[in-house]
Structure formats: structure tokens, C-alpha cells
């Protein structure tokens, strides 16, 4: 299988060192449109879509494989191997922060630095651990996702997939950055919000930076601090940016925080 086609991998920029950007739950690699270009002069910038999102090969979606984050981490390791990446910088947003953590544990040489934006090791509350959500709320989310199909129809998929370069938004491309097969969206939401990677954090062996937004309801400050406390030697930077997507709402702040760390 062609891994690079499967994950709609795009490599841009110059530089010996690679910087891999991984999008989170909800949208695709376009999430990095204001951040990734800033690094193209110094880094080999690698962008990709998780299978099931964006321009990935939907036929490669395997329910069993992607029922845990490990399936996504395996893909990330495969992309690294296909591109011959070593000692790369990993930048993962939201659930992809944990996917990067898992990939790094599996292939310790792949990444030399991890940058985790809005990470959460577990979204659902568990005893003293406050993930921010109850099981019931996550169940409601899964149901709610069906109310927002974003105009998805299976017949539309090929035209979206055939536009990797994303020209000017045509009517048919409306919402395409965040649109996918509703069944896959639901499955990805389930694996994201029911994941528990708390015990994996201590296995990380590479220097790690956590970028923590303020007023992020998906990954609260408390959750970010927990990740900081469990990953040995990790650092945390509190951004002024609010919400869950500083890569879109405050790209300059994100760029300078990453640059300062790598």
C-alpha cells in the first residue's frame, strides 16, 4: 500500500530536519495553513491527513485498526519510515498529541522533539482525575454528530478526494476541510474521547513541549498540567490564545512558541 497516498502526505520546504504536523479530531491538515508555511524555510514540512479525514484514502479505513489510537500511531510511524525521517520535530494538535506520544514510544528514533498543542491523556473524568467530560456527555456528542453531516454524501467523496491542492473554494468544497463520512467521524470521535493514555506518558523519552491555551474546554489547563507532570522533563507554555485551536486563532503565538523550543 502506498502510505503517502493513503494519508494524503504533502512534503514542502527546505531543511535537513523534518517537522511533522498532525491534525486533531474535527478537521484535516488545513488546520496548519497559518502555521506550517512559517517553517518551510528551515524545515522539511510534512503534512498529512489521518485515514478517514480530509484527502485520505477512505477505502483504507479499517474499523478494527482505527478503534484505538494505536492504529493511527502505526500510520504515523509508517509515514516516518516511508519518508526516512529521523530525529524529526512532531507537532500534534488535540488527539494527535497522544497519537504522536504513542508513535514516539513505538519508534523512539523517529522524533527528536514533541510539541503537543492542547493535549489530553483522557477526556472522561475518572475519580480524582478531571478530564472535563462525563461518559454521558460523550455519548451525547456521538449522537449529536449525526445532526451535523455537513452536506456529506458518499457520491461527493471522489470530487473532494481529487482536489489535494484545494483550489479556491467551490460550492462542492464547502466544509470539506472538516467533512468526512459520518460513520467515520463518529468512530473517530469515539476513539478520541474514550481514549486513556495516562499510563503511556511516562514512557516518552524525547524532549516534549506542551502548548496550553486558556479557556480551552476540550483540554483544560488542569489536563495540560497533568500531561506535563507525567512526561519526564517536559515543559509547558501557557498561551494567551483562547479556545482549542490556537493554530488557527493565534498562529503567530504558536509559531513563536514552537520556534523558541526547536
Amino acid at each position, binding site marked *: 500500500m502506498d502510505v503517502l497516498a493513503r494519508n494524503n502526505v504533502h512534503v514542502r520546504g527546505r531543511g535537513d530536519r523534518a517537522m511533522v504536523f498532525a491534525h486533531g479530531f474535527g478537521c484535516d491538515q488545513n488546520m496548519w495553513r497559518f502555521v506550517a508555511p512559517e517553517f518551510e524555510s528551515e524545515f522539511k514540512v510534512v503534512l498529512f491527513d489521518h485515514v478517514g479525514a480530509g484527502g485520505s484514502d477512505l477505502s483504507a479505513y479499517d474499523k478494527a485498526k482505527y478503534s484505538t489510537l494505536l492504529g493511527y500511531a502505526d500510520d504515523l510511524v509508517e509515514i516516518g519510515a516511508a519518508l526516512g525521517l529521523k530525529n524529526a520535530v512532531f507537532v500534534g494538535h488535540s488527539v494527535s498529541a497522544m497519537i504522536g506520544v504513542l508513535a514516539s514510544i513505538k519508534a523512539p528514533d523517529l522524533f527528536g522533539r514533541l510539541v503537543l498543542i492542547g493535549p489530553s491523556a483522557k477526556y472522561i473524568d475518572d475519580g480524582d482525575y478531571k478530564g472535563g467530560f462525563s461518559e454521558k456527555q460523550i455519548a451525547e456528542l456521538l449522537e449529536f454528530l449525526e445532526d*451535523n453531516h455537513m452536506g456529506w454524501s458518499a457520491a461527493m467523496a471522489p470530487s473532494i478526494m481529487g482536489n489535494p491542492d484545494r483550489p479556491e473554494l467551490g460550492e462542492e468544497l464547502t466544509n470539506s476541510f472538516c467533512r468526512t463520512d459520518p460513520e467515520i467521524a463518529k468512530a473517530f470521535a469515539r476513539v478520541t*474521547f474514550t481514549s486513556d493514555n495516562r499510563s503511556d506518558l511516562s514512557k516518552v523519552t524525547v524532549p516534549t513541549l506542551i502548548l496550553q491555551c486558556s479557556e480551552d474546554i476540550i483540554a483544560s489547563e488542569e489536563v495540560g498540567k497533568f500531561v506535563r507532570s507525567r512526561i519526564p522533563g517536559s515543559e509547558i507554555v501557557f498561551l494567551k490564545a*483562547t479556545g482549542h485551536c490556537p493554530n488557527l486563532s493565534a498562529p503567530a503565538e504558536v509559531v513563536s512558541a514552537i520556534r523558541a523550543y526547536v
Partner: protein
Amino acid sequence: MSESGSDEYRDLFENAPCGCLTIGSDGRITKVNATLARWTGFAAEQFVGQRLHQFLNMAGRIYYETHIAPLLRMQGFFNEFALDFETAAGERLPTIANAAEHRDAEGGVRFTALVFIKATDRRLYERQLVDSRSELRISLANERETAELREQFIAVLGHDLRNPLAAISAGARILQRSGNLQNEKELRVLDMINSTVTRMSDLIDNILDFARGRLGGGITLHRAIRPLEPVLEQVVDELRTASPQRVIETRFEIADPVNCDHTRIGQLASNLIGNALTHGARDMPVRVGAKTNGNEFEFWVANAGEPIPDSAMEKLFEPFFRGDVRASRQGLGLGLHIASQIAQAHGGRIDVTSSPEETRFAFSMPLAQADERIGKP
């Protein structure tokens, strides 16, 4: 703009039949109209300075943060999304919303405008559609599973029935060859055994074909171009042996070798003649004919006897359809169904005419088309 004009606009904003809300560049709510305040039960002042997600239910919050907010930054607008407010009374207020960013010259956000349409009934309707679709999916999957099991059972059953039948047939042959059976009665019993084995064997073939067809395999053809007459002769001979008391008259005028699946056409012939023997008048001959006629091959079977009732005509070729016959001749009702499947696989058809004088099944298939189809299933 005149004072009254400005008032009109204000009134339109405040009391529009939709909720309106603006969010400043810092992500905090700057304005809310009276309609949205009324719907949610919060005062307009309670909104200002807050974040929109604080007024949404948890699913709506997550969705807003992971989909809507990013899309607004990426494409500048987002139409027709579902969003649920949580009212002051703690109730859910489902809405459909549109949102658009107003940007400055550099592409920065000046503010974001959102409008909300109440969608309680619409969402209830959609929810019911989604629910009934998933129910259908589940019951369809169950049905499929049951059907598959049933057909697999038939296939296995057919196979298992063949073995004892082969043993009976072999036993009868040994007895026949031994020459030990001499008297008339014993020989008649032997004939009956042979005839029953043939009939049973045909029934099993039909069961297996039917099951295979239903399992998705369909009837596959192994075409060849060779004379068809010997095949038909053999079929008739077997049936004569099986029904020694009946007369089968044949008239074959097949000029050229025929391009078809010879075994399958033999099975079709056997099923049609068998049907005529079962339903036709016992004291009248069954007449069988075959000929090549230009671009067509024709095969027909005719018998005398009671005509087929109009009500039965439409269902003749449906699986498990059985006409009124005495119980001992009762088959599974698969013979005609499989004959028609074989006809279709050859690009042909079976026509039925039935009158008090004669009931006739006529199979015809194109020869030219068959030539083009060589090698294709």
C-alpha cells in the same frame, strides 16, 4: 438614514424571527438580539462578554470548538449547522445556525455574526429519520444473516443427500448386474428404484443450484460449441427409463453445433420435460422438439391435460411454486425456476402457452449473441 429608519433596523435586529448574535475578535459575545434572549431565557446583558460555548450543551460545545470555529477561520463562513443551546431553565433549545466572519483588509477577524433558527420540530424529525434508518440497518443485517444461514443449510443438506443416494444407486446397479433378480415383480421394483434415484438426483441438483444462486454465485455457464442433440437424447432416455409407462415423442432438427452450456441446457430440458410428465395427462404423449432457426435455438415441450389456471401463470417461475398435483409427484417447485434462470443466463427466455388442447413451454435463445459471449460468464 432617518431616525425612524434607524429604529426600524433596530427593531428588525432585536425582534427578528431568528436569534442574532455577534462575537468580537477576542471570541467574546458583543451583541445578542431580544429574540435569542427570549428563547434562551437569559437577559441580553448576561450574554455580553461571555463565550458562546457557555450557552451550549456539551455536545454543541465540543462540536463548536472542533468543527465550527476552525471552519470559520478557514473558510470564513459556515451554513446550516445544528447547535443546541441550554436555556436558563436547563432545557435544550435545538437550532440551525449560519455564521460568517467579517474580516478586515488584512484578513483578521473584526467580528463574527451568527443567526439561529429554532429547529425543535425539524431536529425531532431528523432524529426520527436517523433512528429509523439505524433500526432498518440492524434488521436488514439480521435478515441477511438469517437468509445466509438458511441457504448455507440448504447447500449442505443438498450435498449430504447426494451420498446416500449414490449408495442406493450403486446397490441397484449391483443387483441389476448380478442377474439374480429374475421375476417380473423384482425387476419392476428395480426400475422404480432407478426412477426414484433419477428424480431425487434432479431435485437435489435443483436445490443446490437454487441455493448457489441465492448465495450470490448465480448460475455460471461453461460454454462450448458442440452438438447438442446427443445431450437432449440422453436426457429423454433417462426420463423414459424413469417413467417407463409414459410416452415421450421427440423431434430434433438441430443443424449446427450449438454454443451453450450443454450440461445446463440438458438440465433445462430435463426440468421442462419432468414438469410435463408430472402435470400432463398420463394417457397422452409428451412431445419434445428442438431446432436451430436462423439466429435462434428453440426447444419446446408440449403436453395435453388440464390447462394451467390464469392465476398460476404469473407465478410459474417463482421458486417453491407448486401447482395442484398428487402428493407423490410433489416436487420442491424449483424446476421451472431454475430452468428460467438457465434461460436467462443464456440470454434467452421461456414462453408458456396453455389451452385445453395443449400446454407448451418454449425456450428460445439467440445464437448470434451467444457467439459474442464466448468466454464471458
